[in-house]
C-alpha cells in the first residue's frame, strides 16, 4: 500500500508548490486571480489539509473544526491588539493556543468514536460559537466582531517606538504589509510547508498507524496498540492546522467574527475534503479551491453578467438561457454546489482527485509521452487513498 518513493514525493511537492505559487497566472482566465480570493484558497487549503489528517487518515469525522479556526483568529487579533502588528507572534500564539484547546477537546471527545465523536465535537463547537456570541462578548465583541482600534496597546511595537503613523497600522512581517499579493505569497509558502508536513505524516510510521486505526481499530487493540494517544496526537495536529488557518485569516484581514465558528463552517471543511478526495494528499486543497471559487465567483454573477455571458446567442435565446441558468448562480450558488456534490458522491466516490486519475489512466495509452509525467504524479497522489 505504501510505496510512494522519495523521488515521487519530491515531484509531488514540487508540482504542488509550482501550482500554488503560479495561481495568480493560471487563475486569471476564470476571474479568480485577485488577492483576497487567492488568500482564501491558500488559507482554506491549510484548513482542509489539516482536517484531512484527522478524517482522511483515521476516519474520525470531526464536525466542529471551525471552532479551532475561530479561536485561531481571535488569538491572532488579540496578539495584534496587545503585542505587536508583526504576524509571527500572532501565528505562533494561534497555533499554540488552538493546540492546547484541541488537547482538551480531543481528550473529552476521543473517548467515543463514529457518530458519537462527530456529535460531541459538533456540540462543543456550537457551544464555543454561542459563548463567543454571548457570554464571552468582552473578549470576542460578539456579533460586531473583534477589530483593531487606534488606542490598542501593542506593547512590543510601542517598546520600539513604532507609533509614528496616524490611523491603524497594518499587519506586517518585519515591515512587509500582509495584504494583497504579499499576503497571498506568505500564505502560499505556509501552505506548501503544511503540505510537506502532511506528506511526511502520510509516509511516516505514525501515519500508517493512523490508517490502521481507520481500517480496524479493534484489531489494532488486539495487537497490543493503545490507539488513544495516536488519535489525540493527530487531533491536536489537525487542530493546530485549523488554528494556523484561522490566524492567517486574521493576518490577511485583521477582524475575527463568531460566524467563523458556526457549524456551517465546520460542515464546509468536511465538504471540501470529500469533494476533493478524502484521504488523498492534494484532494482537500482542490476541494477548498472549488468551494471558495463557487462561494466568491458564482455567487456574484447577476442577471446583467449572465446576459453578457450569453451575448453570443440570438436575442430570444439569450434571455431564455439567462433565465434557465439564473437560479443556479448568484444567490443560488449553493444549489449548483449541492448538485455537483451529489454527482461527485455518486459517480466519483473518491472525489475529484480520483476523477483526474481516471482521465489520466485513459489518456495514458493514447498520449504516452505527454501524459506519462502527470499520470505518474497522480499515481503518487492518490496511491495512498488506502483502504
Amino acid at each position, binding site marked *: 500500500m505504501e510505496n510512494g518513493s522519495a523521488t515521487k514525493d519530491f515531484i509531488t511537492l514540487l508540482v504542488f508548490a509550482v501550482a500554488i505559487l503560479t495561481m*495568480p497566472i493560471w487563475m486569471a482566465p476564470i476571474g479568480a486571480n485577485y488577492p483576497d*480570493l487567492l488568500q482564501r484558497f491558500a488559507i482554506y487549503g491549510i484548513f482542509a489539509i489539516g482536517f484531512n489528517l484527522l478524517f482522511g487518515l483515521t476516519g474520525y469525522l470531526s464536525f466542529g473544526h471551525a471552532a479551532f479556526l475561530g479561536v485561531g483568529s481571535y488569538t491572532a487579533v488579540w496578539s495584534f491588539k496587545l503585542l505587536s502588528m508583526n504576524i509571527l507572534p500572532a501565528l505562533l500564539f494561534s497555533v499554540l493556543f488552538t493546540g492546547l484547546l484541541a488537547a482538551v477537546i480531543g481528550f473529552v471527545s476521543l473517548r467515543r468514536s463514529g457518530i458519537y465523536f462527530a456529535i460531541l465535537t459538533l456540540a462543543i463547537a456550537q457551544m464555543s460559537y454561542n459563548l463567543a456570541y454571548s457570554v464571552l462578548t468582552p473578549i470576542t465583541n460578539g456579533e460586531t*466582531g473583534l477589530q483593531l482600534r487606534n488606542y490598542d496597546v501593542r506593547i512590543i511595537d510601542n517598546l520600539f517606538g513604532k507609533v509614528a503613523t496616524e490611523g*491603524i497600522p497594518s499587519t506586517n512581517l518585519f515591515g512587509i504589509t500582509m495584504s*494583497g499579493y504579499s499576503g497571498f505569497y506568505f500564505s502560499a509558502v505556509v501552505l506548501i510547508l503544511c503540505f510537506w508536513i502532511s506528506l511526511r505524516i502520510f509516509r511516516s*510510521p505514525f501515519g500508517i498507524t493512523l490508517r490502521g486505526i481507520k481500517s480496524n481499530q479493534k484489531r489494532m487493540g488486539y495487537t497490543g496498540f493503545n490507539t488513544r494517544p495516536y488519535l489525540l496526537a493527530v487531533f491536536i495536529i489537525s487542530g493546530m492546522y485549523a488554528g494556523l488557518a484561522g490566524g492567517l485569516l486574521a493576518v490577511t484581514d485583521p477582524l475575527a*467574527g463568531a460566524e467563523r465558528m458556526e457549524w456551517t463552517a465546520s460542515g464546509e471543511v468536511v465538504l471540501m475534503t470529500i469533494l476533493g478526495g478524502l484521504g488523498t494528499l492534494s484532494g482537500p486543497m482542490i476541494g477548498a479551491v472549488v468551494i471558495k471559487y463557487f462561494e466568491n465567483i458564482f455567487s456574484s454573477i447577476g442577471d446583467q453578467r449572465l446576459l453578457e455571458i450569453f451575448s453570443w446567442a440570438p436575442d430570444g435565446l439569450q434571455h431564455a438561457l439567462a433565465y434557465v441558468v439564473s437560479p443556479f448562480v448568484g444567490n443560488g450558488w449553493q444549489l449548483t454546489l449541492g448538485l455537483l456534490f451529489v454527482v461527485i458522491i455518486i459517480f466519483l466516490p473518491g472525489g475529484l482527485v480520483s476523477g483526474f486519475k481516471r482521465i489520466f489512466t485513459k489518456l495514458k495509452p493514447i498520449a504516452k509521452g505527454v501524459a506519462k509525467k502527470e499520470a505518474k504524479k497522480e499515481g503518487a497522489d492518490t496511491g495512498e487513498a488506502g483502504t
Partner: protein
Amino acid sequence: MSKIITSKWSRRDILKAGAASGIVAGMPMFYMKNAFAANYLNDPGSAAAVTFGFNVPQTGAYADEGADELRAYKLAVKHLNGEGDGGMIHTLKPMSLKGNGVLGKKVKYVTGDTQTKSDAARASAKRMIEKDGVTMVTGGSSSGVAIATQSLCQEAGVIFMAGLTHSNDTTGKDKRRNGFRHFFNAYMSAAALAPVLKKNYGTDRKAYHLTADYTWGWTQEASMVAFTEAIGWKTVATVKTPVGAGDFSQFITPILNSGADTLILNHYGKDMINSLTQAVQFGLRDKQVNGKDFVIIVPLYSRLMAQGAGDNIKGIFGSTNWHWSLPDAGTKAFVKSFGAEYGLPPSQAAQTCYVQTLLYADASERAGTFMPSEVIKQLEGFKFDGAGNGPTEYRAADHQCFKDVLVVKGKEKPSSQFDLLEIVEVTPRAKVEYKPDNKFFAGGKLGPANNGV
C-alpha cells in the same frame, strides 16, 4: 517499526528548489504592481465607465431592507446615467451632475451579498475592490457589517458611503476618514423620542429593554436608557438577544413578572417583526401594570418592518430617518420615480442609499476626480437640500449628516398596505444635535484619508 522511507533529497535541496520556484512565481506580482502606478486605487483613468459596489444583505434577518436598498441603488445608477426621469437630480441643491454619468463616465455597478455577517461582507467588498475595481463601496443594514466594511474601505483606500446603519459607533468611536453616513443614529432617535414619550406616557414609567446583541443594539439601548431616565423613567432590566433568533418567547415571558410597564424593543428587521408579534401574542399590550396600560416602543422604525408586523404596530411610537409620505419636492420626485419603476413606495433604507449614491457622484463631479482624498474634501462640511430631509449638513468632524428626525406612530386606520406610519412630530435638527466629543461618540479618530497607493 523501522524507518521505511529514505530520501535522497536533502532538506537543503528542497529549500533551494522552493526558493527558486518562489522567485519565478513572484514575477507576476511585480508586473501587476505596475498596473497600480496610478494616483489612487482603482483609478478608472481614460475608461468609459466607472464602477460602484453595492454590498447589501440578500439573506439573513435584514434581507428585506437589503432588497429595497438594491432597488434604490439601481434606480440611482439609472438617474446618474440620464435614464428614467432623473428623480432627485432635479431637486437636490446644490447639484453639479448633468445626467451623463459621472465626470463623463457611464456608471456601472456590481452587487454582493453581505449575508448580514461581517466576514462575508468584507469578503464581498474585497472582491469588489480587488477584482471589479470599484471606487466606492456602499451598503449596510447592519451596523456591525457597516463598521467592518468601513474599516476595510479605509485600509484599502476607497470611499465607503454607509447605507442603513444606526449605531452611534459608525460615526462615533469607529468613525473613519474614508467613510460617510447620511442615516441618523441611535442618539438622535432617543433625543427625538424622549419628549414625545414624556407627553404621551408621562414621567413615571418602568422600562424593560430587549436589545439586539451587537454594536447597534448596545448603543441604542444606552441612548434610550439615558434619555428616558432623564425624563424620570426607571430602567427595570436590559436583556440582550441574539440577532436572527426567530423565537423570542423565552425573553418575553420574564417581562410579565418584572413589574415593568413599558417594553422598549431595540430590534430591527425580521427580529423586530418576530419579537413584537410575540410580545403582542403574549398579551403584553392588553395588560395593566402599576395602574397603567402596558406600552411597547420601537425606537427605530421602518415601513418594511411595519408591513411585516401587520396590525401589531398600531399606536406604537418610534423614530425614522425619512418617510415616503413627506410633502417636500425631493421626496415626491423620488417616490414618483421609485413607484414608476417598482410599483411600491421606497423605504427609509432605500432613500438613504439612493441619496448616498447621488451625493458621492456629485462630490466626485465637483472634485473633478474619483480620488478619495479629493472627494472627501468635497463631502466634508457639505450643505445640501432637496433630498427629502430638509436642509442637511455633512459634519466635517465626524462625517455624520445632521438633519431633522421624524417621530412616527403606527397608524390606527391605514388607507393602503403602504400607509402604515403617521408622522407625529418632525424634530428639528437643533434638538438632536450633539458635540463630536459627546460621551456616546467619543474615543474614535477619523485618521488620515487613504487613497490606496
